[in-house]
């Protein structure tokens, strides 16, 4: 171990009203890999980004070998020999591997003011060789695989003389071969007394490659242990809370009538032969870890990303199941997207316009009846208790919870038979969350069907009649209401 260490002490970070990191402290030692684990939103990435200088903490301190250091930007991080291997490699597709590796240190490879390509390629080969990788450094990055791009970043880190290497979800897009290769490299790095910090939610990897694990939940550290002393169960308890099991609502009788049938849905490589049925009045939960393909499955089903194969059938007004080609299904459902900021809200447009947009036909065959639109909007604002002085307020002025309520109102206004909700309470305060949950339950009690994707285990347990577990782009198992516990869900998604 030696005396090489990296410590963070009492780190706090707030993002727009939400406490992303609460008094986080831990220490990592040279020659070891420390895992940072936790479910989505636990704060792991935020912590890493602070260490890498990409964001600044509100308070706290960072120490290397007990001496405090200041990291205000990436340059500081590199100076302190810290490098972050990003989830999506920071690379330039139109430049070669070698150029990518040394793009911010080109002066080291200059001779008489010109770039010495032979020396650059040679050095690149050296570093790639150290990682046991055989990529031609002259290849353009656009022609190498994602796994190789990751190795490029690692090589860059080594060439910058980094001794603290942070990995952000490194194995999500790797093949089994590439994963093996990565682990060999990490072991090698450990042998050279480097510090490795490793974010993942693949708990089996944690046991395999890391000596220590720090568990985070809701921004705070809930566990810090040597991996040899812990089991996956222990980790799961620390990730989702050791509290008394949430009272899972009693089982409901769900009708047998299908409202949606999906067969052989395929869109390589994230969606692999997906089959499932949604019944009338049912709330179907979809649960899986990050990168398992949940959103991708839904987007392929809705034809937002064109699938290579698959048949989608939907129940019409007349009760007959019909095949939905192209974007027909999308026009018949209510779809709450994963990130309202990206493809949900119309910023600077008032609330009422945001609510009425999907179903303008209702308000006039040619000229829109603005009064009627505003009435409908006001009704929704009241029903969902959206906190706003009036319907004219632009949506960007609302809080997260109220914004999400506007999105929900949009779909309730359209009155579809099927709701598809992707993370419906992300970035939403407790009260709004409860209100939305109530809405979902009411909707299903009135006969509507819901597909619910969520990373919040409580939410899934609370609402779903049935849960499908996703792994590697396909449904691996189904959990019925009476079997639902947090443990079961976590375990199912891991094996």
């Amino acid at each position, binding site marked *: 171990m030696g005396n090489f260490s990296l410590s963070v002490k009492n780190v706090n970070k707030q993002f727009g009203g939400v406490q992303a990191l609460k008094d986080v402290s831990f220490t990592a030692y040279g020659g070891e890999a420390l895992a940072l684990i936790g479910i989505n939103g636990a704060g792991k990435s935020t912590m890493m980004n602070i260490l890498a200088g990409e964001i600044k903490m509100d308070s706290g301190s960072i120490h290397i070998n007990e001496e405090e250091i200041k990291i205000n930007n990436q340059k500081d991080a590199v100076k302190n020999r810290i490098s972050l291997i990003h989830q999506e490699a920071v690379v330039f597709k139109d430049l070669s591997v070698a150029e990518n590796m040394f793009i911010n240190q080109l002066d080291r490879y200059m001779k008489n003011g010109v770039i010495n390509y032979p020396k650059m390629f040679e050095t690149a080969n050296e570093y790639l060789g150290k990682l046991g990788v055989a990529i031609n450094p002259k290849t353009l990055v656009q022609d190498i695989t994602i796994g190789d791009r990751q190795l490029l970043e690692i090589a860059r880190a080594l060439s910058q003389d980094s001794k603290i290497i942070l990995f952000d979800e490194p194995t999500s897009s790797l093949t089994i071969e590439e994963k093996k290769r990565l682990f060999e490299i990490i072991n090698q790095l450990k042998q050279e007394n480097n510090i490795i910090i490793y974010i993942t939610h693949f708990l089996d990897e944690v046991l395999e490659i890391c000596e220590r694990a720090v568990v985070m939940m809701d921004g705070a550290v809930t566990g810090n242990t040597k991996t040899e002393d812990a089991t996956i169960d222990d980790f799961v308890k620390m990730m989702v809370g050791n509290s008394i099991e949430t009272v899972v609502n009693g089982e409901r009788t769900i009708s047998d009538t299908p409202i949606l049938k999906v067969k052989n849905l395929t869109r390589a490589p994230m969606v692999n032969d997906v089959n499932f049925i949604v019944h009338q009045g049912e709330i179907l939960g979809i649960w899986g870890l990050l990168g398992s393909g949940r959103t991708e499955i839904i987007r392929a089903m809705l034809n*937002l990303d064109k699938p290579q194969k698959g048949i989608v059938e939907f129940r019409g007004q007349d009760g007959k199941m019909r095949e939905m080609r192209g*974007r027909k299904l*999308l*026009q*018949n*459902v209510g*779809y709450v*997207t994963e990130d309202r900021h*990206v*493809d*949900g*809200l*119309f*910023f*600077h*447009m008032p609330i009422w*316009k945001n609510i009425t*947009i*999907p179903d*303008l*036909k209702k*308000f*006039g065959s*040619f*000229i*829109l009846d*603005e009064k009627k639109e505003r009435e409908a909007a006001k009704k929704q604002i009241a029903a969902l208790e959206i906190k706003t002085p009036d319907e*004219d307020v632009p949506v960007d002025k609302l809080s997260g919870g109220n914004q999400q309520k506007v999105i929900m109102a*949009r779909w309730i206004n359209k009155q579809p038979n099927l709701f598809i909700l992707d993370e419906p309470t992300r970035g939403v305060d407790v009260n709004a969350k409860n209100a939305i949950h109530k809405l979902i339950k009411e909707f299903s009690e009135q006969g509507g069907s819901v597909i619910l994707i969520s990373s919040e285990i409580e939410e899934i347990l609370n609402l779903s009649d049935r849960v499908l577990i996703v792994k590697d782009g396909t449904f691996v198992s189904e959990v019925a209401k009476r079997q639902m516990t947090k443990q079961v869900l976590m375990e199912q998604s891991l094996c």
Partner: protein
Amino acid sequence: MSILAIQSKKIKNQLQTNKFIVIVAIVLGLVAAILAVTMPTFYTSANIQSLLTQCSAIALMAYGQTFVMVSGGVDLGTPSVMCLSAVVGTLVMRSYGVFFGILAMFSLPLLCGLINGLAVTRFKMIPFVATLVMMMLSSGAATQLSHSVSTPAPEVIVAIGKTTFIGIPVAIWIMLVVGVILHILLKKTAFGRVLFAIGTNSDAVTSCGIPTNRHLVLAYLLSSLMSALAAFVLIARLGASSLSLASDSASLDVICSAILGGASIYGGAGSILGAFLGTLALQTLQNVMNLFGVDYFEMIIVKGVLILFITYFDTIRTWLRGKA
């Protein structure tokens, strides 16, 4: 809240969102007052009529431009397509009669608009680039077909051009009536609403299950249709086709009139009334400069600088909107 309070709040809201139009209107008012004192020649019926008829072609195109800009795009080719339409129209009219001439005059721009729309939606070309190409293509074709010579229009058209209702020439009527129709189309129909939404966040529109491509193509078709209408007004007024408007300057005139009227190159904003006022403002400026004896080249320098300022305001305005 009392009804009066709600009403006045609504008006205040309207004024705030259309702040720019209000500013333009006020500036115009001031300019008009100043001119009344310093330059009586401006207020001759002949000059005002000439100004307004000149405006009509540009205004029509600015209306079309507003639709395209609202949806987040831009159409550089409108004046060139207009000239092509005028040339083709007069040539066909000369050989095959008015009916086929009008048919040709309107169908060719619609084809151009369709190509623009498809280029942007199907081939994912940047609107600026796609319409820039269309501009060069159509002005090249216009020059080629006319051999740089003006083709006279048939008597019927010239007669229409000279007609007046209540003393106001047809061209101005067209500008006003079409303006009203398009204002309703933009602000009060689902089509217009969806265009605003696309310009604000086109991914969100797709997630709502609304087909964006269809709307975008229609916007470009409308813009080119306005070019055709402008061509009609032009040949009716001039009595012949003309290539003088197939220039960069005219292109920028149209875009800037729309921007002055509240449209933004970044999408999601625009107003037909504003485009009308913007056209008026820009053309008045040109007219006044003419009366003052400003050189043509000095004029385009002033225009260029003005356009830079207007573009800057658009950027600032968008930034402020983002902040606010």
